[in-house]
């Protein structure tokens, strides 16, 4: 049985590892033909990727509406073209619509019930935003369990000028009550959060961990990678993604480096943002690559490092953590996020109390001063990655889900 699925997302190559782009060839093997419909960024010239609402002026209007929303402390409400989405050719041709990131300023959630009744719908929650009144990650706040309101931090993305979190929460609840969709999350942490969320009550939640091409992400020659990246000889190397968003724990990491044993001289390799480690120039070697989609660079960085630091204060899954594991590198993280579970701390990865920079420094010292232990953890990480994070398994589970949804939909006789 052949199934046509349209993956709807903000972009194709950005986030390709979890938005269905990389999954496509593996789904084919299960009889699932996947196409992509993107809104903001079409960076590839793959023929299975199309741009939604690609008529002149649309994006200008969308940006304008997003500004209006921001002015009135709303989010994902005022995009009328969303009602036309079910009539898009790619959606009409598909058997199932699989939504991914639909909350970054182009889709009105109010159209979701209308959409889900016209097409069997699966929605992957890549972060907890669907369960909150405004924020992507609530961090230590628990008010998402009570309907939000009196928000302790309106500046968290997506920021609000005025506290309308309770109103947004109530609106989402109304929308979800009328929506017919299957929810997919990638980790038990997210499932647990969904289980406690009033907004997820009406949904069936399935856990499908993301996977990797384990032939692409695999242990490689450390010395050769270090030579390519220009690592100074004899330095222990830590790799991390440097993002200054409030969720990625960069500040805590920098504090941890400041508190390291003064005799330790590291090499810090970072991707995404630059300039965050300038204070360490002269003491530690800093190799910063800025924003890059280059997979070869990524693989080299994993190979060159001794361990991978992912000090996120909030993380729904942790794609880079499983990449590091697949490259036989242990992951260090904070407790209270999905990462200790994903990285199998304390056996393979290592986790420390939430936000504790001192503890993070100590665990880094431990790995630096015990290279044998570090290597053993890395090997175990690889074994666990092979067992749990193979993209073929993700494809199988996803295909099974599609089949189940389709058969449920046929039984209920829904109009497509």
């Amino acid at each position, binding site marked *: 049985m052949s199934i046509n699925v349209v993956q709807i997302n903000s972009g194709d190559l950005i986030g390709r590892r979890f938005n269905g782009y990389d999954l496509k060839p593996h789904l084919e093997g299960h009889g699932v033909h996947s196409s992509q419909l993107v809104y903001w960024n079409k960076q590839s010239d793959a023929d299975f990727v199309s741009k939604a609402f690609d008529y002149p002026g649309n994006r200008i209007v969308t940006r304008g509406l997003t500004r209006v929303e921001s002015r009135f402390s709303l989010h994902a409400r005022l995009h009328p073209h969303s009602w036309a989405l079910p009539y898009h050719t790619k959606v009409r041709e598909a058997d199932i619509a699989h939504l991914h990131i639909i909350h970054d300023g182009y889709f009105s959630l109010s159209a979701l019930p209308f959409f889900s009744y016209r097409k069997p719908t699966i929605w992957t929650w890549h972060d907890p935003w669907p369960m909150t009144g405004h924020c992507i990650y609530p961090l230590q706040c628990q008010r998402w369990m009570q309907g939000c309101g009196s928000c302790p931090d309106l500046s968290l993305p997506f920021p609000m000028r005025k506290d309308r979190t309770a109103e947004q929460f109530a609106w989402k609840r109304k929308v979800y009550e009328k929506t017919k969709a299957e929810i997919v999350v990638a980790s038990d942490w997210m499932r647990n959060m969904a289980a406690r969320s009033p907004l997820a009550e009406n949904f069936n939640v399935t856990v499908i961990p993301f996977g990797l091409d384990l032939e692409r992400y695999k242990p490689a020659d450390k010395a050769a990678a270090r030579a390519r990246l*220009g690592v100074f000889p004899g330095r222990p190397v830590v790799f991390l993604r440097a993002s200054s968003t409030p969720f990625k724990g960069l500040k805590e990491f920098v504090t941890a480096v400041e508190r390291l044993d003064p005799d330790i001289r590291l090499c810090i390799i970072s991707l995404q943002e*630059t300039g965050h480690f*300038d204070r*360490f120039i*002269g003491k530690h070697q800093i190799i910063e690559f*800025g924003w890059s989609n280059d997979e070869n660079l990524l693989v080299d960085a994993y190979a060159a490092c001794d361990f991978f630091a992912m000090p996120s204060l909030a993380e729904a899954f942790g794609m880079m953590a499983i990449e590091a594991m697949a490259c036989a590198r242990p992951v260090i993280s904070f407790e209270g996020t999905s990462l200790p579970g994903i990285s199998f701390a304390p056996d393979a990865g290592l986790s420390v109390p939430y936000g504790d920079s001192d503890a993070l420094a100590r665990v880094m010292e431990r790995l630096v001063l015990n290279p044998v232990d570090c290597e053993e953890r890395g090997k175990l990480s690889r074994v666990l990655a092979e067992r749990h994070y193979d993209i073929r398994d993700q494809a199988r589970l996803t295909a099974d889900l599609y089949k189940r949804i389709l058969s449920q939909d046929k039984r209920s006789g829904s109009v497509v």
Partner: protein
Amino acid sequence: MKILLLTDIPPCENLTAGLVLSAMVRFVPRDGICCFAVVNPILDIRTTPEFANIPTRICAKPNENWSWLPQRRIIRKLSSVIAFAGESFTEKTSVRSLVDKAVAFGREQKVDRVWVVLQGQTTIRMAQAVADKLGVPLHTHVWDPFSWWAKANCIDGITARRVQSTFDEAIRSSRCVATASEPMAELYRDRFKVEAVPVISSHSQSMAQTPDITDHGRGPIIIGMAGQFYAAGEWLQLMRAMRASKWTIAGRPVRIVVMGPQRPPGALDSHVSFLGWKTQPDAAFILSQCNILYCPYPFDPAMKEVSQFSFPSKLVLYLAAGRPIVFHGPAYSSPAHYIKSRQCGLIADRMIASAIYNELERLVQNADAYRTMAFNAQSAFRDDFTLESMERSFNAFIGAKGLSNDGGVLIHDHTKQSGADPFIPLQLSDASRRRSFVWIAHEVAKTALPRYAHFRRQLKGVVRKLLLKIPRLGSLYHEIHGLYAEKKALERRIAELEEKNARLNDLLTKSSSIGAAKWVDAATEEEVALVDSLGISPKFISGLYPGIKTLVFIKLPDGGAIAAGDRQQDNRLSGVGRTRFRYTSVTYVQLPLSEDRADKTGDEWDGIERSLPRGAVAELLRFVLQERFERLVVADNVGSGIAIAAEVAHLASQRLTVISKAKLRLSDKSWLASQDHIDYVDAASAGAANEVSETDADGELPVSVS
């Protein structure tokens, strides 16, 4: 051979393009070239008697620059329309007239080839037309890609495309193309199937430096930089990296020495010395005393084409200096390709501070790689950038015969014969200048703009007075201006605090460099007594220049050396008898032992300068640059040592004080009078400051903390 050189800047002495053309024209035999120059009427071009024998016609070129039109948003479209109209008119009128004049001149001179510098719409449009009408081969010369010129001069899109097409056609139909770099030559060979030769501004072999590239891994690192700051952002990242590392690389302190026509951007740090403009030979010599040469290049994507195909003249100078280069620019640029292929340096291919720091440390940490790269830099200069190689390239470009018999450079004389009329510098005639639109517009703008500014100020005043009569507006106005005044006061306060901070940092630097300098020993009793006897005691010098880091050149009376004892290796300059020591802020250094040549080489500075021992000058210069002395001093009893001290001071852009016991007879050394960086102090009239240093209560000489 008779060449018609068609250019927008003729050989001259005050413009870079003119200097490079001058070098090339010297390779052409006498009476083998004539010049038709279409010049910008507002440019000041200084021709020299050196080329007075070359028949030259100068005409005004039409306006090529439209950036004076408003370039903002919708108005830009209107400006484009005006530019298009202007260019169309120019092409059909002025350019045709210039072509006719050039052809007539060429026929009169009986030229057999045309050499055209393709810089600007005018010469591009003229190139092929002139060559075709004369029926002679065309040789084109490209400094920069036309797309860069079009953007910089805000030429409209249609004209830019048309002129680009004309440019391409000119290249395609050229007998040979002279390019700014090898990548550009490759591009033209591939794209246009034409012979292309890179002709890069080069220098005489005598400018090649062969510094001692053995680095003992101690002492400060000097980073040298010369030339213009067209890559200001990159420089600021270097500053950021140095500040972050507290001005050290691999634990060694760093100094930066900059020379050129413009000061470095941003506030000048106390670790950076700006030496001002230097001649090319001086610049090469100074750079040869630096450890690393820093070459920034723009990462701006808008400059990508220029980066790929141009070649910075500072790189040639760096290679002449014979030290490894750290290139801070994009990997796709032509200098990066060259440095990689010749392995004469390292490339920091990301703009950020950490990237440039990493390459600097990599070079400092690897002594073998350092030596190899320095050696490769010296070879690269000899192979690719001497006048010999430039002559070969030029001859290949223009289709001339080869080198002179002895393999050296053949430089031809283009001066007027003796007995001919005195040289009158060629300029655009006043009548031609006044008829040109560019000059008229320039003069009108010069007059009108200040008047317009004055009118605006007056109008604003009147409008303000009227509006302030409205009560609500009046109170708002006062409120806003109160805030402005507050802001200004805060900015003043910030500036004061920043200045204080800079002064404190400076003091900190001085005290730490004096205190922490392990490579200059503190003075012994014997040494202090000796300098006292020479009339240049530390107390005397400190009295003359309180709180200023001073270097005193000395020469021992009998030519012998102070017993070296167990002085550190670094405390000795090379050779027997050279030593250095310090007493608080005054450091003494022994001048080289050599016969007094100053009198024998006559009394002209050029002759004396040539006779100076270059090795000693180099070592002393390096010491001055490392330690960042603020004042140099020498006593007049050191004979030719004064000349060495004067040369070092001149190269380091420092003032030199000559202290004399007896009134110095300047007439005996007129070369001294020609040096404007020398001050004179009469030791006798300076008072009793020149006495033996006092001991403290315990009978010990006060010794500075090391």
